[in-house]
């Protein structure tokens, strides 16, 4: 197990370096001038050549690319995430202030997706191709196809017009004001959780159907155990392994999906910050946020891999 952890973590570190190079390449080398973003297209044309060079030097954009890359990585290693072009708050502060909300949304969405997906999968897998199975598969396909932000907009509009309810505007932390915090978080979490629950239900159904056909399940039935304990205690734990892996991948969907969904709900989380950064072409904020998201995604995947290896010893000895 120890060597497996070491191997996985080393791979993760290599991946994070590769990811940082890709982020840097995408946001610095591709065309698009940050000065246009700061001064606007009209203001940009009014700048003289010398002024342009001055501002580029001030932003550190006239150094060679390798130097720029190393200084960026060094800054991040020292915990300095840079500043926005438009806001006084540093990116680090912004992440600390807004990150917890998005993390809460992600965790709640994952829990919700399991709570919804697994029971549906069990019901479908017990009677494959029955009416209940077909209905639940139909509904899960519908939820796969619906974009989360669209559902989010509908929920916001419906609660506003029919119930006259509006989510509290100010961001509230979990500890200071749990009730307001729950109101802010619950909408995006439900929308993202339902979308993921559909994937989970489909995966768990097919995996459960596979496991139910195995010999040991038939043995358990043959020795006289009733249906319910066989499914819940013998079949389900083995069927859940691929679901855990899928859940790790889906966490990426939650991270990405939270961007438009938080925008739809007006949630003051990191996703909304990313959205704003894109709209304002705030290159440095975008660069650091994209990197942060990718690092979180890589780390979560390592965590999921380690969990799987811990649950299933066959994997770590491969």
């Amino acid at each position, binding site marked *: 197990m120890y060597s497996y952890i070491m191997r996985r973590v080393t791979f993760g570190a*290599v*991946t*994070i370096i*590769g*990811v940082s*190079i*890709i*982020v840097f390449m*995408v*946001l610095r080398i*591709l*065309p*698009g001038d940050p000065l246009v973003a700061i001064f606007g297209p009209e203001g940009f044309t009014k700048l003289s050549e010398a002024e342009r060079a001055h501002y580029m030097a001030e932003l550190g954009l006239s150094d060679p690319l390798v130097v720029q890359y190393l200084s960026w990585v060094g800054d991040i290693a020292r915990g300095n995430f840079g500043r926005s072009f438009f806001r006084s708050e540093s990116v680090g502060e912004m992440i600390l202030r807004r990150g917890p909300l998005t993390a809460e949304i992600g965790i709640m969405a994952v829990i919700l997706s399991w709570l919804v997906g697994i029971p549906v999968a069990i019901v479908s897998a017990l009677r494959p191709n029955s009416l209940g199975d*077909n209905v639940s*598969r*139909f509904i899960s*396909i519908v939820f*796969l*196809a619906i*974009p989360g*932000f*669209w559902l989010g907009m509908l929920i916001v509009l419906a609660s506003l017009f029919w119930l006259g309810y509006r989510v509290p505007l100010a961001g509230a932390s979990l500890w200071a004001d749990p009730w307001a915090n729950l109101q802010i978080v619950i909408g995006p979490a439900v929308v993202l959780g339902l979308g993921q629950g559909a994937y989970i239900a489909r995966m768990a159904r097919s995996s459960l159907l596979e496991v139910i056909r195995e010999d040991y399940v038939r043995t358990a039935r043959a020795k006289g155990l009733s249906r319910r304990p066989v499914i819940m205690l013998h079949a389900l734990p083995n069927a859940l392994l691929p679901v855990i892996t899928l859940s790790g991948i889906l966490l*990426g*969907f939650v*991270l*990405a*999906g939270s*961007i*438009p969904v938080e*925008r*739809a709900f007006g949630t003051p989380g990191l996703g909304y910050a*990313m*959205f704003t950064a*894109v*709209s*304002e*072409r705030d290159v440095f904020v*975008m660069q650091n946020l*994209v990197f942060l*998201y*990718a690092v979180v*995604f*890589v780390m979560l*995947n390592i965590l999921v891999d380690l969990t799987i290896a811990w649950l299933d010893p066959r994997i770590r000895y491969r």
Partner: protein
Amino acid sequence: MTVTEPETAYSLQQGRQAVESSRLRRVRGGLSTFIRRSPLSAFWGCIAAAILVMAIAAPVLAPYEPLKSDFRAMSKPPNERHYFGTDQIGRDVLSRVIYGSRASLTIAIGAVLFGTTLGAFWGLASGYFGGRFDIVSQRVIEFLQSFPDLILAMAIAMALGAGFGTVIVAIAITRIPFGGRVIRAVVLSLKEMSYVEAARGLGASHLRIMLRHILPQCVAPYLILATTHLGVAIIIEAALGFPGSAFRRRLRPGAICWLIP
């Protein structure tokens, strides 16, 4: 339906008709079996076909001009003149949805054709040659896969700036790793087959083996992959063109995507 004279026994024309009708019957038979076996797939297949028809026949089907605003009917709920209602500046929403299917499908198909195909060829080469090239390719693909799709697409679209083509390229790049992975796995098992060995024994070049002997076997997994990713591409495209998004404002004027009021 004329009664054929016995002396004009079996003309070529009739023969061809017979073949065509039997082929038609076979297609129809296959379709009806498919519908009976999996009614759900058939149902969704019809919907997909309807959307395709809608996109192609948009000018015929749309009741109004999608970009023309009618200031006497602004922000109207659905009524008998505008089945989907109108938006803030009086444009017919139904027409915009119908025209929007064009943009959405073009972007999705373009992104998948470009991205998945590029990934597939990359996977073909990396699986076939193996060695150091394969190791490096796998790492690069892993790096690309470490980003959630939408985030990478957003970053690329932002860096490249405005446009229809930009969105296609941005989504296409996120599709590359999937094509690469799947096709590489197929190629790895195919290249050990004895018919590939036979071709090599006959002196076929690497290029010929890859294109004539291995590539045709990759078509089926490629098609499955591509159709799945069409849906993913449409969802990413919708999120990029989400109301209030920067990309929507910068899209070429006149380009309408779905879900953009």
